[in-house]
Each structure stands twice: as C-alpha cells, then as structure tokens.
C-alpha cells in the first residue's frame, strides 16, 4: 500500500513538473531576455534610434505571430527573442505568439488568429505545404499575411511580403572569403547538415559549385552529421585516422564545426588563425564568434535571426497603404573573419 501511494505521489509530482514546464515555457524566452544580457536586447537596442511613430498613432496594431518552437535551435531562440522584444505595446503592437514545430498545429493557430480578428499574421511555417486554404481564409477576412524566415509553397498573391535568408548567399560569402585566403590547394572536409533542409541545400550548393569549377579545390570527405556535434567529431576523427590530408573544415553549422575542432584537438592538429586547418562554421552562436575572436576558428557566417525590424518596416509600408516592393526581402547577412572580428561584433551579432 505504501508503495502504491509512493507511486501515485511520484507520478503526480512528475505531471506537475510537466505542467509547470509547459506553462512556463511560453514566457521563458521573454524572462530570459530581460533577466540576462541576451543578444536580442542588443539587437533591439541598436535599432532603438529609429523613431517610434506607430505608437503615436494611438491604436494598437493587432498581430498574430506563429513561429517554430524556440527549443528548435539557438537560431530560433534568438529569432523568437527578437520578435518578442520588438512587437510590444510601446512600439504600438498588440502581439500574440504561438509556437509549434508541427505544420498542422501551426495551421490551427492560424485559424485561431483569424477568428480573433488580428490585423496581421506573421508566419514562419514548419512545413512548406498545406497553407493555401488557411491563407485564403485570412485573405477573405482581410488579414494581411507576412512570411518570415521560411517560404512556403503557396501562391504569391496570398501573402503581402516575405522576409527570408538566402542560404546559398550565406554559403557563397563563406566560399568567396575562403578563396581570398590564397592557399595553393583547398582540401576540404565538408560536414553537411540534415540532408534536404534549406540551410544544407543552399550552403552545400555554394561550395559544390566552386569545387566543381576550380582544380585546386578538392573535397576530401563529405558527410552529413545532421547538425550534430558528436557525429561531426566522429566523422572528422575517421578522416584523420585514415591519414588523408586536409586544410579546410567547412561545417554547415556551428555545432558541427565545434565537433570537428574537438577532433582536431584530440589529434593535435592546429587550426584557426595561425593553424594548419581553416575552420568555417555558420549561424553566429555567441560562443562560436568568441572562438573566431580567439583565433581558434577562421570564419563564421551569419544566418540573421533579427527579422523583427524588417517585419516592422513591411507592416508600416502596408499601413501607409503602399505595396511592398520587392515582395521578397532577403536578409542582410554578414560573415566574420578572425582577422577583423571585434568584441563588439560578438556582442551584437552573437545569438
């Protein structure tokens, strides 16, 4: 009997923990941003000079924002924080947020927002398909849809604007930078992200084109590590054990670059600023930029999560009764080099 009671208590406690977890999760990023020096704060701070005119118009603009869950990645966390810090009452917005990594749940949230009668629907879709009918509903209800971060397979007339990253451009920037390094030969270990994801396809394409075009560019090994640090480390270890020569690691995100560096460290191979191997990562995690600053890595390409300001611009354009042109806005994205990076860059752009 005692044990049964214990069992009940335990499970109740666990369920309570779960509930607490769920309940708190939604507000968590906001807490975080204020409690600690989150990068999003800085990003917002940067743009604070822009005049705050929407608040002056008196009436709050009602927006519904559907995003992927912040636990998806560091990039997403930064993205969520940026949006939550921007779309506030002080800036003239009455914003509601919903998060899910599942398309069907997101569609349900969209329907909910349509019923709530929001003015704008901001959407970062989990999946590309299945949005036509719900976006049509929104259009019929007079709700303006703006896509951010991710595009969808739907007719352009269904949304007013789209703010996305060009993954290939990010890759191209890194490849161009690499070409400037003036090595006689580029022997590259290419660690790919989850096959088929937009970031993987874009960043791979940029590198592959260059390798195909230049004789002095070779790929020593090309494997997918599914964005995972551990897998990347094991793969690079395998290449090192094989005894193949290489002088570049092109990892499609920071975590995999970090795993690769761990493997280099274990094998006693130098890397970074004065090392034998050039290390390239993407996404600009704060710790990654710190590594670049410390000269352990050579380059980190940005995938810009700070889309709030651009979204705000689009909304203002639409409020003024103008068309958004061009309809698709590509985010401005930077690349950071170990030679030129500053502490300020780390603080500003690190996510």
């Amino acid at each position, binding site marked *: 009997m005692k044990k049964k009671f214990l069992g009940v208590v335990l499970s109740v406690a666990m369920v309570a923990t779960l509930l607490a977890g769920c309940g708190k999760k939604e507000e968590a990023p906001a807490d975080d941003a204020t409690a600690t020096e989150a990068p999003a704060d800085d990003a917002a701070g940067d743009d604070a000079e822009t005049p705050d005119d929407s608040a002056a118009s008196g009436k709050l603009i009602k927006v519904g924002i559907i995003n992927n869950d912040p636990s998806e990645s560091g990039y997403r966390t930064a993205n969520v924080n940026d949006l939550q810090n921007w779309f506030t009452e002080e800036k003239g917005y009455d914003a509601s947020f919903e998060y899910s990594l599942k398309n069907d749940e997101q569609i349900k949230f969209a329907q909910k927002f349509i019923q709530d009668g929001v003015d704008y629907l901001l959407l970062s879709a989990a999946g590309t398909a299945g949005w036509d009918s719900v976006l049509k509903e929104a259009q019929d209800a007079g709700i303006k849809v703006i896509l951010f971060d991710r595009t969808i397979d739907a007719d352009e007339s269904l949304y007013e604007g789209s703010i996305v990253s060009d993954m290939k451009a990010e890759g191209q920037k890194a490849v161009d930078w690499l070409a400037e390094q003036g090595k006689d030969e580029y022997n590259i270990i290419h660690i790919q992200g989850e096959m088929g994801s937009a970031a993987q396809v874009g960043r791979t394409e940029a590198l592959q084109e260059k390798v195909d075009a230049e004789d002095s560019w070779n790929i020593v090994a090309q494997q997918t590590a599914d964005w995972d640090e551990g897998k990347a480390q094991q793969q690079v270890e*395998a290449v090192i054990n*094989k005894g193949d020569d290489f002088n570049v690691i092109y990892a499609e995100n920071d975590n995999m670059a970090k795993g690769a560096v761990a493997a280099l460290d274990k094998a006693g191979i130098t890397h970074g600023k004065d090392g034998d191997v050039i290390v390239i990562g993407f996404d600009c995690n704060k710790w990654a930029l710190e590594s670049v600053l410390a000269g352990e890595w050579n380059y980190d390409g940005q995938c810009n999560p700070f889309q709030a300001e651009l979204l705000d611009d689009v909304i203002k354009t639409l409020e003024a009764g103008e068309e958004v042109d061009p309809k698709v806005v590509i985010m401005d994205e930077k690349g950071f080099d170990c030679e030129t990076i500053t502490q300020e860059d780390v603080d500003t752009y690190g996510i």
Partner: protein
Amino acid sequence: MSKIFKNQLFIPIAALLLLVLFNLIVDPAFFALSKGVYDGDSILTGNLISIIDNGSELAILAIGMTLVTAASGGQDISVGATMTLAGSVIVKVLRGSETSPVTLHQSIIVAFLVGCLVAILCGAFNGALVAFFKIQPMVATLILFTAGRSIASWVNNNQNIIIKDEKFKYFGYYLPKIPIPTPFIIAIICIIIMALLLKFTTLGLYTQAVGINENSSRLNGINPTLMKFVSFIILGVCVAVAGLIKASRQEGTISYGGFAKYIEMDAILAVALGGNPLGGGKFNMAASIIGAYVIQFLTITLYARGVNPEALPAYKAVVVIILVVISAPTVRDKISSLTKKLRVPKKEVC
C-alpha cells in the same frame, strides 16, 4: 560446436568479427593505433580508440535498457530526451545564470548528483507508470519522449551556453596523464559495477523471473512491481552518467532538439543485437554491451569508408537488418542444427 552457436554471445561477437574482417580486407590501416598529444599529455589515437570512446554512452545506456527490457518486456523510448534533460540540468547547475561562465558555479560532483536525481526521477516516473499502473513501457515512456526535450530547454531558458572549464572537459575527453579517453573508463566502471550487482545480488535472477513469468515470481515471494520499478531507476542512473559524458564532450553546448537524438533506438538495437528477447525474460548483459560497441564499430566503419551521405542511413539499415536476422533465435537454431547435421551424422535427440 553447436554449443557455440547456441551461446548468446555468439551473435554479437560474430558480428564484431565480421566487421573486423571486412575492415582487414578493405583497409588494414583501419586498426592502426598511433600516439597523439592532447593538452601536453601523450594519448592513443586511431579508429579503435574512436570506437571505444564514442560507443561509451551507448554501452552505458544498453546496460539499463537490458534490465528494463528483461523486467518489463518493453523498452524505454524516452532515453534520448531524459539524457538531454539530465545534461541540461548538469549544465544549469554548473553555469548558474551565466551563459559562458568563467568559473564553475558549483562543483561537478554536485552538478552530477543533481542531474542524477532528475534522471532518477524521470526513471521513477516511467517506472511508476509501468510497474504500478501497468501501462505498456513504450506508451508510458512516450510521455517523456515527447516532453523531455522541452523541459530540458526550459531548464536553461533555451539559452546558448558554453562551459569552457578544464575539469568539466575531463569527462568527455582525457584525464591528465591517462592515454585512454575518459568516457571509456567511465563505461568500464559502469560495467564493473553492474557485474558486481549481478554477482552479489539476485538482481539478475529476479529480473529474469519477473520478465518470464510474473505470476510465478509473485507466488515465489518476488515483488514484480518493485523489480520493474528498480530496473527503470537503474536506467535513470545510466542516463545521467551518459548525459554527463555527452554534455562534457560538447562543453555544455546542448542543442535541445538534437542532443543524443535517436540514441534510444540504438540502445534498443544493442539489446536486440545481443540476442536478448525484446519481449522480456532472459538476458545477457555482456551480449548487450558488445552489441552497443558493434553498433559504434559499424558507424565508424561507415565514416571511415566515406559512404555517400545520402546513402549512409540505408547502409546502416541494411547491415542492421542482416545482424538482427542472424541474431533471431529461429535462424540461430537453424544454423546450429545445420552444423549438428554436418558434424554428427546421427545423434540421439532426446
């Protein structure tokens, strides 16, 4: 001869030998060991080291998974998620409220114990659902499988953390003056502790008895509920240890969605490769552990061969199917009866 084939260890060892043979033929240099330098100390490097190093988490999880499988006749699929949670908690305790702490906020022992407590609580939660409420293990553990990673990210407010601390790195890399990776040493310690537990307690006998026939076990004075519960608790401890190793390997950079992703499937596969019935009952701990290293051996072999990335999962699947099929009891019986026929033309069968 037929006894060898009947032995449960035959399959995982045969699979291991097969992989060894393949690599010997294709590239003998695969087995080369060389000396490297890490942090001023000389260490061993090479594919074999890579295998025993990176297979450690899996081997540790396989220990717990074997017990859970034997006692409850089902599997815990929340292992990857709870491992993320344990790792996240350890990192949280270590970092305090900084994202890249210069000094540790708490000692690593305290952090590990807190992580252990959380993992044990998760195990207790799963165990309570399975043992007290008689819910199918896969269904019961589905709850934490779904929620675990969200809780893990909530623990650290979704933050990007890095803990650059030399001592914290010991667990995933090397201890000073020791040429063998620490994860392997930890795995060996876990294996020894489990071996001692099996030798000096009746854990093995009771767990198997409960898994085979719960009614009989109860009528012989064993408490089946308790045994199932205990197996989940032990798995919880294994999860915490594996979580510590992996968090240390990654210096606290936990991507909540991808940390130890699908490791539960590999752990279950290790149990199956060891020839242990997934429906519970008899188990062979050594076979499961060898099974875990076979999986890692396969992974490293595929990496070393530089298999086309799109085809990697397919290769792995094919090899796994072959291994699982030859480890199926019916196939084993066929093989052993075949050799019996070949060796002894006529023998009395009782």
